[in-house]
């Protein structure tokens, strides 16, 4: 059975998000990035999702891969851009949305794997309705 999880991030456009998410596949996960341009009457200009077969991906593997690519993206961004407020520290965050509510994972960049494993993740990928890649105040 296939499944698609929409991904949101505060990036300039869908191309940039697609580039970031292509890193998930590079981490060895059997997923594809799908961009849907809205053609009907809808609120979203375009959306990006990760599409995969449920049997081939697990929740911890997907979230860990996402945390890695998000941290890598923010690191590379910091190298090229001057921070707006140098004294403010922002922490990469992965927010998992489920029907029961949101699960926030503040990612420790020195130990990404454990940031994910110490959180109680949804058991089933189908429980996840959307994932947001954010930055929050440390």
């Amino acid at each position, binding site marked *: 059975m296939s499944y698609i999880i*929409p991904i949101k991030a505060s990036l300039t456009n869908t191309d940039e998000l697609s580039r970031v998410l292509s890193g998930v596949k590079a981490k060895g996960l059997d997923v594809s990035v799908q961009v849907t341009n809205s053609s*009907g009457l*809808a*609120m979203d200009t375009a959306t990006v999702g990760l599409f995969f077969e449920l049997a081939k991906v697990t929740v911890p593997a997907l979230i860990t891969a996402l945390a890695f690519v998000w941290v890598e993206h923010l690191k590379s961004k910091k190298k090229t851009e001057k921070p707006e407020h140098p004294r403010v520290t922002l922490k990469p965050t992965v927010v998992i949305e489920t029907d029961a509510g*949101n699960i926030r994972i503040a990612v420790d960049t020195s130990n990404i794997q454990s940031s994910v494993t110490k959180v109680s993740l949804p058991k089933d990928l189908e429980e996840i309705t959307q994932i947001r890649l954010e930055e929050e105040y440390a």
Partner: protein
Amino acid sequence: MPERRISFLAGDSGRTFASTGLVVMRESKAFFQHILSNPPQPEGRDFEAILAWRHEIVHFIQSISTSYLYAHSVATIRYAFNVLDNFQELLNLQKKRTKFEEITEALSTREFDLSVRDLLEGVAVIEAYKMSDPNPTLARFLDHRDIYFTGDSKSCYRRTFDYLSGQLDNLSAYYLLTPLSFLALQDATPPKSFKTIVEDLLPNISLDLLLHASIKQMCSYLGMNIQDHLFCRLDNIPSEKRHPILYECAKYALALLGKSTFTNMVCRPSVIESSGIDINAVEALLPPMVVFSSTPGTKLEGMTFGLAKQNKDFEAVIVHTTGLIGAAERLTVFRDSSALYQFCPHKAECPHYTSALCFNYFAPPSLELGYRNCGFVRFFESRTKIGPDEAWSRLKAM
């Protein structure tokens, strides 16, 4: 066998099928009810879901109150059924464009630098914002737009506001975009009409007068007659041009709200939130049917409002008509598309799944009921006289 989650939309928060009044929400009904009964946070998931819902409400109101979108919806159904009822003729056309494809593209085609979709989305963005922010202001709207509708003036979500503020100023655009778009959408060529209003008529009128005018006064200042508008001549619409869903919804809303309240609400939908009107009456302006993605292990759920709440058959007409228009789209507009999003749980066993003709049929049977009880196949066969799988293979063999 446990029911799979059915995610109706691949990514959109919500979508309105203006031709049938059906709204699809990406969130589940349980989550949606939770945010309706709790004040949403000013940002994040709750806010986005409620914003999407209000955005779709505005589109539904446009479909029952503007002559252009109403006529477009009537034509969409007519030409979609032409495609299905004359399937052999479609094959004989050898990929030549159908009337259905022309009408489908009409909304997004930019003439005079604007499209009908630009007008519809521009209003939905600003009105949904005004409904959702407890203290709406121009400055806050501009910030809101930069968060939720990024991009530049090429975006259909920003284009009409940017154009109008360029011709007038930001504040005038903030107050006048909705009523002026509403008036333009009563015409057969809304982009041209909008430009005529803005560039030829507005320079002769005091903006102060317009900013405080009712829609009736605005019509009079602009030399228009409100009696020409769709909702003033509903009874005169000939039976063949009466939309099976939208006509009934418009009549119902007019009867419950009265012409004056109806007019005030449809030309500036955000006033609904502060109207103080009886909730049952306001319900007539809500999309008659909303369907939600399911949660794992549960069946699909929907919500009905107004006429659809009173009449199960009306609800069925909405779902089936949306599905059949989708089939016509697949046979024409999306014929060569290899990646249509499909949510049906019967991928493995249904012989019709591969054709994706059912990609807009938002009532797939549960796993328990089985694919053989699919209403889409029955309705498709009743129009085309062949099954979806056979229709698709004949089309591809062309």
